[in-house]
């Protein structure tokens, strides 16, 4: 091609890079997930600000226990990063993923206990005004995300066992772990506004 044509085309686009593209797509997805939580959290904040006695007397949330669960979830983000690093170094991230899955499941288990505890105390979606509404909706939506995250990690773990991450393609692992970090960050916000505020 002659110089004239080259000048006209200009810098152009690099050849399509699938890895970059998959991560990019994942980020767009997470942006919309963030807006979903922004809607729910925004609702919580509005309702709470307009209501001086927001947390009804008689409701005691297990702050310390949940703090421990939070630590486990945050920790699992780091084990997940460890897994990503291993995959990038062409080592199978089987153990790292396994530990992450266990930690994620522990978090979920704690949430199940907490919900059932509250339920037995007579606190449920339809009681105690907007506090209970928001509490169960926010933690429920988040818990659902953790659950999906665990499923994704289990899938990644099985791919790892099957040796699928031995090569250069670990898109699936990358996406699962991005999702996992996202779920983690959302939890920190949820924890802060529900348990610490």
């Amino acid at each position, binding site marked *: 091609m002659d110089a004239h044509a080259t000048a006209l085309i200009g810098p152009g686009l690099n050849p399509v890079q699938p890895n970059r593209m998959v991560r990019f*797509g994942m980020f767009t997805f997470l942006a919309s997930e963030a*807006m979903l939580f922004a809607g729910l959290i925004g609702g919580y904040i509005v309702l709470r600000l*307009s209501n001086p006695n927001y947390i009804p007397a008689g409701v005691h949330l297990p702050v310390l226990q949940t703090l421990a669960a939070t630590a486990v979830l945050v920790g699992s983000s780091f084990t997940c990063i460890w897994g990503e690093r291993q995959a990038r170094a062409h080592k199978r991230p089987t153990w790292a993923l396994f530990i992450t899955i266990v930690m994620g499941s522990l978090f979920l288990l704690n949430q199940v206990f907490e919900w059932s505890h509250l339920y037995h105390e007579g606190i449920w979606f339809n009681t105690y005004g907007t506090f209970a509404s928001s509490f169960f909706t926010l933690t429920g939506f988040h818990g659902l995300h953790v659950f999906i995250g665990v499923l994704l990690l289990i899938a990644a773990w099985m791919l790892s066992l099957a040796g699928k991450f031995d090569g250069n393609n670990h898109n699936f692992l990358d996406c699962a772990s991005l999702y996992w970090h996202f779920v983690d960050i959302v939890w920190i916000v949820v924890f802060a506004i529900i348990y610490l505020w």
Partner: protein
Amino acid sequence: MAAVAEPRPLESGVAPVALDPHVHAHHEQGIFRTYIWSHDHKMIAKQYLLTALFFLIVGGLLAMGVRYKIAFPNVPIYGLNWLLPSYMVSEEGVILPQMYNMLFTMHATVMVFFVVMPLLIGVFGNYLIPLQIGAPDMAFPFFNALSYWLYALSGVMILCSFFVDGGAAAGGWTSYAPLSNNAAYNLTQKGQSLWCLGIFVNGLSSLSGAMNYITTVINMRAPGMRMFRMPLTVWALFITALLLLLAVPVLGAAASMLYLDLNFGTHFFQASGGGDPLLWQHLFWFFGHPEVYIMILPAMGISSEILPVFARKPVFGYRAMVWAMAGIAILGFIVWGHHMFVSGMNITLSAVFSVSTMIIAVPSAIKTFNWMGTVWRGSVRFTTPMLFALGFVSMFVIGGLSGIFMASTPVDLFVHHTYFIVAHIHYVLFGGSILNIYAAIYYWFPKMFGRMMNETWGRIHFWITLIFMNLTFFPMHNVGLGGMMRRIADPTQYEHLRALQPINIFITLSAFVLGASTLIFFVNFFYSMFKGPKAPPNPWEANTLEWTLPSPVTLHGNFEKTPTVYHGPYEYSVPGMDKDFLPQDEPLKPEVKLGGH
């Protein structure tokens, strides 16, 4: 030369497998993979097209029902009484107020979520983005197919809601609390709940689409296709996808909360439990205002594409067009309060929303000016797509002007919740979105189906549509200013509205003609699909990349060889060139210089 190297084939899994077209050319796919669970963006676009046209008929019939009830509130329709349950029609066959509420609620829901959005974004987003940027397919074909099927599923849910106990949702498409979240008020717990679920699933469909469009536009443009060489349709769809991505999840959150209020006894929007009905309005309109731009930006992109082609002139102010759309999109997120002036909002806040809304009219006006500048002194070819695009520009001016009236708080206090609003909605959505959808279908039909639509019938369709849409929607301004409220089943019950009844009857009769005129379009559409004259590759002599391909584009992977782009898409009538158009993949003659960008 390195910059134009062939993109290398993508690795397996998520990315399109068809960068090398020959991979696909050789193995035939079964009926299931070709027509049903297709991963080809062109087939998915056609699936969207047929489904959304079906919903256009549904939504249209609902509208006819609405208009019938307003004009002839007590005239029975024989047969309805044995077709429909007794809470919908009386024994004689008169439409009852509860059914009227269902009719207008579902009319708007269907038109917004199942007709306009899928037609603009599902059909033309899917069809045009890869073709116009020179890509083999969308970035994530699987999610693209998923997007269509989620849309179809949500459509089935919405249709089913008519048949549940209590009938379909009846609280308006805006579903204001406390009407929507109290079964005692809306009389259809199940219908309203299905509405929430349907909207949620529909939102998931929009998101898979939006994700795809954004990723595709950013990552898969052909060599030389810089951002500022993209056709304005692609720009519009790209910006729309960003809006979808950020606005639709908020509706998802709101619909979930509404669903929980209805079925789990939460108190989000329930004042008696400490909740706040106004929270619904804020969440809904935080989505709702971007949503109206989601429904108009792609339409604006379409007209920006069609006007230069048939005026044989470069689009006037390409960059201004892009920045105007970006400005509209950003401002669109901070004006939602203009729907809530009468909600008891703080007066300062209301002034802020007023001003931000009026500012949004500026980029809208820039675009209108540029469309006129594009056509000005062009050698205009009045084809059917061009007529519709010109019709859009004129109708949009009327709708935009009434918008500015309403943006001013004192005026809105008077016209809010009257037929004036209904007039505004329809000038922008029918005169804006729907006219451009027609324009786009007439324009890209040859590329999609390989045959031309009939011009004569196209023009007849255009003129009847244009005339009768004005006869239908313009008088709505008058009845609105005359004090007629939206969403009332029987205006003759109100003393002060009786004098307006003749206008209402006139509107309804015009609406019937407008509805019937759609038949012309449908006959033309289906007849031409099978019997129309064969289309050449570039029947309109246009520049964008899809016209460099055969009609219809059959290859799964689109381009035999990745095209190289040398200039912007609107180089018409360039002095010194042999023909008056210049496809984006044809270089200029070395001695010719482009004027503008």
